[in-house]
């Protein structure tokens, strides 16, 4: 499975958001997308997922033009994990995951035994089978996010797109969710996720893509391309990069003087 985007342009009315995005990724990788608010991360995702019309360029999934695919065909190739959110109605965890199997059902079909099996093994993949009969609204935010991941797995696609999966989670849940995501990438899924946390990128990502104002500023291994200058360019603040040499792990802390300067503004 391979995802290839060539020269992608998109505008909301006169406001051009994507200004020629080209990249190529293949399965078995966790690609993190960094960029400040409004840089075009979500717009890029929404184009790939078929939620926005009127983009120019080319989106190829395994060589097939995504622009020509019906919702069902697209859902068989790419799944989407939204930020966890409240729902108007309450469903059991199993029912939530079963929704991921909808694309494989007949036009008027209901999920049956086979779909149930798929859903249960998806719950196993993220180790939350014990939550199966719980009410989705009654479990913790981190667990909800894992359920949404299981739902995407039940869709049985190789490509999974996640929009800031950790944005509403506490520190522990963030790490748990990122670990689950990393495991899936190791098992062969291609996971593309946007994040606002450079630490997560250093800790978990195989690759990072930096979007600066609608174009790709840099793409590659995090420890190679994510420099203090680049982070400054993304977020507009001074950042110091440090490395724990025995673990070959980088992390960043914001420059204190710079932060207080920003606050003084």
């Amino acid at each position: 499975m391979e995802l290839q985007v060539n020269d992608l342009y998109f505008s909301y009315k006169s406001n051009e958001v994507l200004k020629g995005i080209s990249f190529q990724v293949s399965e078995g990788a966790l690609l993190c997308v960094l960029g400040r608010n409004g840089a075009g991360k979500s717009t890029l995702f929404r184009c790939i997922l078929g939620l926005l019309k009127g983009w120019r360029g080319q989106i190829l999934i395994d060589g097939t033009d995504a622009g020509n695919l019906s919702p069902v065909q697209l859902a068989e190739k790419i799944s989407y994990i939204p930020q966890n959110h409240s729902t108007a109605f309450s469903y059991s965890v199993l029912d939530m995951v079963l929704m991921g199997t909808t694309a494989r059902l007949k036009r008027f079909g209901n999920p049956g035994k086979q779909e149930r099996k798929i859903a249960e093994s998806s719950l196993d993949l993220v180790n939350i089978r014990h939550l199966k009969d719980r009410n989705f609204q009654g479990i913790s935010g981190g667990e909800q996010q894992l359920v949404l991941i299981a739902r995407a797995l039940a869709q049985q696609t190789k490509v999974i797109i996640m929009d800031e999966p950790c944005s509403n989670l506490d520190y522990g849940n963030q790490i748990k969710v990122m670990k689950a995501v990393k495991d899936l990438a190791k098992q062969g899924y291609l996971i593309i996720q946007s994040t606002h946390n450079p630490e997560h990128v250093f800790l978990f990502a195989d690759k990072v893509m930096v979007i600066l104002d609608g174009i790709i500023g840099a793409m590659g291994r995090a420890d190679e391309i994510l420099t203090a200058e680049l982070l400054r360019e993304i977020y507009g603040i001074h950042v110091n990069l440090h490395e724990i040499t025995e673990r070959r792990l980088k992390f960043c802390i914001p420059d204190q003087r710079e932060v207080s300067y920003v606050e003084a503004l």
Partner: protein
Amino acid sequence: MRDPKHIKIRMSGLAALLAVCFFGSFLLGKYAIDPWTLLKILLSRVMEIPVDWTVQDETVLFNVRLPRVIMGAVIGGGLACAGAAYQGIFQNPMVSPDILGASNGAAFGAALGLFFTVGYKAVSVSAFLFGIMAVVIVLTISRRVKFNVTLGLILAGIMVGSIFNAGVSYLKLVADPTDTLPAITYWLMGSLASIRTQDVFFACPPIIIGILPILLLRWRLNVLTMGDEEARTMGINARVVRTVVIGGATLITAAAVSVSGLIGWVGLVIPHFARMIVGDDYRVMLPASILLGSSFLLVVDNFARMLATREIPIGILTAFIGAPFFLYLILTEGGRQR
């Protein structure tokens, strides 16, 4: 509560309740028929039984009570189904089947027919057609709303509904206060008293045809409550599903109003009640709503004909029962969620 076995038991309970309400409703009324006679009259249609009942018994049963009971059950189930479906496609549990103006349109159509005294049958036809027309107008307007499809629909529905409402008010104003005005007013209150066999043949087909696609799409309604975009990433064309459901619900509402007048609250309250009993999953909640809606309207209609010396329009009773019950549901809702 999520145990499938429990849900099966509860569904059988609801089906049994409907059966009891259905047969019980034959017995109740100003003209009482005892159960034994009822059974014998019904059986006489399929086998030879010595006749020991009056012709009047038979006439009341087949020409008055039977159509009324069938119509009550079908309208109650239909309105509950339409309400439940709308709550799903608008991702909002506070929505009722008249949100897109179907009943306002139908009311106007009926008032127009009554105003020109075109005859009973033509009033029904006019109500039905105007009900559908109102929703077609709403759909046409909402296509032009780009930013938020469901909000566009609801706003267009409110607007079109209130225009038809104004039309009804105007017709009442210019109607003859001695006969046409009371006819319109009474008709708008909603009643099953005038239901005859011809009404059953007129309204049942569209209501049943409207219920079918909604029932078939009930799993997709679950997915659609996640929001249009999420549903689409799971392979559902939200626009198509929504249009089909609106079509079905409109057939139901327009047909129901065209023979019974405005019967409110059923479509809003019954789905909530069904949710309390079997949960939110549309696969069971929708059939449960239909069963419960049928039973509810039959029971209320029994009160409508028994409570006072003169028939009470059923629309008044459903409001009297529905509104406080709805308030109760809202007040206890928070406890149920967790």
